[in-house]
């Protein structure tokens, strides 16, 4: 394909170039910005006001200055994600990071900061950045060709992310140590590996149907597995969202659960926080919420993500909503 330009400086580049001749940027790897959407405030309030008092209230309409994290959209070829504050929470404590290594594959990480811990948005951001680094480095080095390699890299990513989140903790406030959930995907030619800790989820949707790839690390899910609760009881149980595993100083987590599957037909891999799946818990619900033709890959992944986030917002948006959609080509390559 011709006419490509450097994402950094817009200089024309060839698909064969590994680095931009003009600015030296690595052209094989493209990823979401480290640190998230940036801590700098958007310049304007939704009302158009440009002046804010020292507490961030708009001088014209009084509303709190929007954070750049309130709504984050990012798209790369074949993968796109949205992270939205939702309608009820004061901050967006979800984070997402993903990247693409040309000719090698795609890595995605979604983390949901635990609201009852302090600095939850920092926890989720440092976790996704750290884990994405590990997975993208593996993809670049070409060592993630087998399922075992991908699962090992996923475990390394979790260990690194867990350590990074643990470093945020203050020893004197151990009970509110920053913490978050974790779900990741490494998508290469022909296969995909999903890893998770906590209750963020991954779904696979294809023409043949939809499936949930993850099982929640929650007390309710454990009780269902042990036959103490039914699925329906678990949904309304107050322990439904109490995590049994998470990342953070007090997590004790050493490895994720993982699953690897062959990508044989076209479809979509959806990673999301509970802010989405609360409203579309079953794979069939998610399937029904997709725009028409989405599975046939006639809709850009960013549009698919927008449609899913909108479903959650329309249903009340009680929590932060993060959705990352990866297109699966099927029959080799993503």
């Amino acid at each position, binding site marked *: 394909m011709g006419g490509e330009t450097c994402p950094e400086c817009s200089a024309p580049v060839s698909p064969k170039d590994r680095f931009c001749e003009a600015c030296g940027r690595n052209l094989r790897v493209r990823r979401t910005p480290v640190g998230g959407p940036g801590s700098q405030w958007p310049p304007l309030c939704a009302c158009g006001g440009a002046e804010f008092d020292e*507490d961030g209230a708009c001088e014209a309409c009084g509303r709190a200055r929007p954070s750049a994290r309130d709504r984050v959209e990012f798209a790369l070829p074949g993968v796109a994600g949205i992270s939205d504050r939702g309608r009820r929470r*004061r901050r967006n404590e979800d984070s997402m990071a993903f990247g693409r290594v040309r000719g090698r594959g795609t890595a995605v990480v979604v983390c949901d900061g635990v609201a009852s811990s302090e600095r939850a948005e920092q926890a989720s951001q440092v976790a996704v950045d750290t884990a994405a680094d590990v997975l993208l480095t593996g993809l670049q080095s070409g060592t993630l060709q087998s399922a075992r390699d991908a699962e090992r890299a996923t475990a390394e990513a979790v260990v690194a992310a867990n350590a990074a989140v643990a470093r945020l903790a203050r020893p004197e406030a151990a009970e509110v140590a920053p913490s978050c959930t974790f779900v990741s995907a490494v998508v290469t030619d022909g296969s995909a590996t999903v890893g998770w800790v906590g209750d963020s989820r991954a779904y696979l949707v294809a023409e043949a149907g939809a499936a949930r790839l993850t099982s929640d690390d929650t007390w309710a899910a454990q009780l269902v597995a042990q036959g103490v609760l039914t699925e329906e009881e678990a949904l309304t149980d107050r322990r439904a969202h109490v995590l049994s595993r998470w990342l953070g100083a007090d997590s004790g987590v050493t490895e994720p659960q993982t699953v690897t599957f062959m990508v044989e037909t076209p479809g979509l891999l959806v990673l999301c926080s509970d802010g989405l799946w609360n409203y579309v818990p079953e794979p069939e619900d998610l399937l029904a919420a997709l725009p028409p033709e989405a599975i046939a890959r006639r809709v850009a992944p960013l549009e698919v993500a927008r449609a899913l986030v909108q479903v959650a917002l329309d249903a009340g948006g009680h929590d932060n909503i993060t959705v990352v959609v990866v297109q699966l080509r099927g029959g080799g390559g993503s």
Partner: protein
Amino acid sequence: MAVAPEFAVEVRQNEHLPAGAGRVEAVVTVTATGGARAGPAADAAEVLVLDTSGSMRSPPEKLAEAVRAAEAALGVLRDGVRFAVVAGTDTARVVYPPGPGLAVAGPRTRAAATRAVRRLRAAGGTAMGRWLLLADALLSGPDAGAPDAGGPGSRASGAGPRHAILLTDGENRHESPQELAAVLERVAGRFTCDCRGVGTDWRVAELRGIAEAMLGTVDIVADPAGLARDFESMTLAAMGKAVADVSLRLWTPGHAEVVFLRQVAPALLDLTGRRRRTGPRTGEYPTGAWAAGESRDYHLSVRVRPAAVGERMLAARIALVGPGEAVSGRGRVLAVWTDDAALSTRIPPEVAHYTGQAELAEAIREGLRARRAGDAARATARLGRAVRLAHESGNTGTAKLLAAVVEVRDAASGTVRLRADVTEVDEMTLDTRSTVTKRVGRD
């Protein structure tokens, strides 16, 4: 110049609103803190306005006590304070000093003023607006410490406290209510004025109107013998003010409406209509003069445009503005929309308390009005309600005054019977003091 004042602002509110609601209520406590001290005596100015209309002769001790009260006030004027004494009838004249402007307090001038006051004789009518105009002319002259003698309602700046005491025993017969209102419009904010009614022939509503416009107090002095001590304490309080001409600055967001702003402690005073626009979203309300350590409560109600659940809005920002536009203190009233009814239905005790105190004052006034009109059923219902509110809020002062007008059978339920033998003094005392609130509990 008085020492620059500092103010602390504390806001009590429930910022959580249910979806679609736009009314935000807060109780704002303002306290003069910091290094505020009474300024140099030369910055303070005091004018005593004594009613010398013909009615002051009956009984004869009325004028005698007024003279004694003026002597007491003169006795506590600090050396260096600028002062004058005005005698009011259907016109007004300066009793002291004999020359133009104000005198400087000192042993010689105090003695001379006392001699002049003792020569006062009562004769003529009552036109309080003219008394106030003369007081204003004296207080805004070049020797009163007020550098600008600006137009109507203008704010003097950089001056010490300018204060008047107005004593009367009767109705404002010799000018129309419109004439008095026009004078108040003109002089409001230029000095503060405490009003005292002696005897029972004056009208509570009339004197309260003057006191509220002039940001002063109003009270009844039923027994002339109590006048001297009252004058002395008012004069001392006026001279103890560290800073005059303080305004409360209120910012509200676009599309917001200030439903009301009223002082609720130590007494009720509605400031809503006193707003002076200072910017597209800001206005200032006069609060008069403040002593060091003085603390007052204000009840603010703002209507904002409702935002979506989860949104946060600054509904008001409060600061105090002193002389020379010195801004001090800062309070924030917030609004957060939520669908959690447990959060949004909570009424803060301070807001509930002062809502009750305002209703208490209203019930007393309505009850007394009905009683005068001979509507016993309505008077019983309203005064019963007042008894119950006074009881519930622990306003024992008002409860005591109510008990002189109604026989209380059960305070908790507000069960009362009208007394047949109510004296004019008891009724007027209750009416006058109905705006005195019980301050909300604090440690």
